[in-house]
């Protein structure tokens, strides 16, 4: 799966996905900085990542 790329759903830039990537991982768009979640690898597909959970405490 070397050389995988997918389009950023926010700005349409091509985002490189590592050969060892897994579905569910977060990657960052190098153009717009959006956090994207890998939803598929064959074909490669990205969606805007859900926001982090906000929690109280440490």
């Amino acid at each position, binding site marked *: 799966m070397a050389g995988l790329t997918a389009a950023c759903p926010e700005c349409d830039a091509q985002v490189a996905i590592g050969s060892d990537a*897994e579905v*569910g*991982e*977060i*990657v*960052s768009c190098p153009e717009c900085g959006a*956090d994207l979640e890998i939803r598929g690898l064959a074909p490669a597909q990205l969606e805007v*990542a859900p926001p*982090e*959970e*906000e*929690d*109280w*405490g*440490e």
Partner: protein
Amino acid sequence: MTATAATTIAVDDLLLEMLAIPSPTGSEWRLAAALRDRLAGAGFDAEIDPAGNVVAGWGDGPREVMLLGHLDTVPGTIPPRREAGRIFGRGSVDAKGPLAAAITAVALQPRHGPARFTVIGCVDEEGDSRGARQVATRPSPATLIVLEPSGWDAVTVGYRGIVRAELRIEDALRHRAAPESTVADRLVALLARLQAELEERGAARGPFHRADLRVTGLEVMDTGLRETAVARLQFRLPPDLDSTSLLDWLDGERGEAELLVQFATDAVHTPRDSRVARALTRAIRRQGGAPRHKVKTGTADMNLLVPRWGCAAVAYGPGDSHLDHTPDEAVDIAELERAVAVLSGALAELSR
């Protein structure tokens, strides 16, 4: 002691040993000494640094992975015990459980490889981070894992900043039936105005992304001729409000009140796609979990270290942080063991 194979530690036994020595902030010494000896016996290169932190090394590779927890707890005695599959005790969640899990996971790693591991139990995390300030004088590691309770299947990537300050108003003492307001009247009105403005600014935001003010102490004193009202304050700061800006705003709002500042640190928000975040989330999946990323409304030693070092950093550890500082503080043994497996898997990946 010769450098040989990995060591298996029973994490639940280790945690109970740590819980058996009370260590409220300012009284960590006895736990530090006992843990240093325990870790040395398990094959770590363990010492106590000038601040009183326990610093324990494992391995000799060039790439340092630091796992930084804290020895101190908030006050309150909860008898340490194993009950119904859980371990109870002050600090079982915040944060001796995460530290015990990290020690156990590191001891499972081979000693010779690209990575070396440094486990640190800091003093004074619940105070002014005197321990972390000592650690900050070390060279930056390649990777930092702060040991706080994210839950076994989650990784924390953000903490709010904090400013601890006092506002004081002093004036001549007047008869209580006089028309003029007292210093306490005026101070309380000021605090209400500050809180209302912060609430209005943060109304459309989630808890991590807003600033808030908590009054942690109120006192009125008089000499018979003059009186002083003092409020001790704790501000929590989101990533887009640094402490300098907050203090500039306070200077503009405080009027006659004097402002004294004890401590300030800004928010920290680290990437979800860093190598360490990915290593932990992969390891969570391997253990059958659906990994989550969290940002917390509290403040941790990560706030002090990440701006200084700029290294990849997350916080991780077993336990439900909603039990922090409560009389019901306890951690599931199964969660503790899962966290060891997650950490061990992540450390193995970081060693490649």
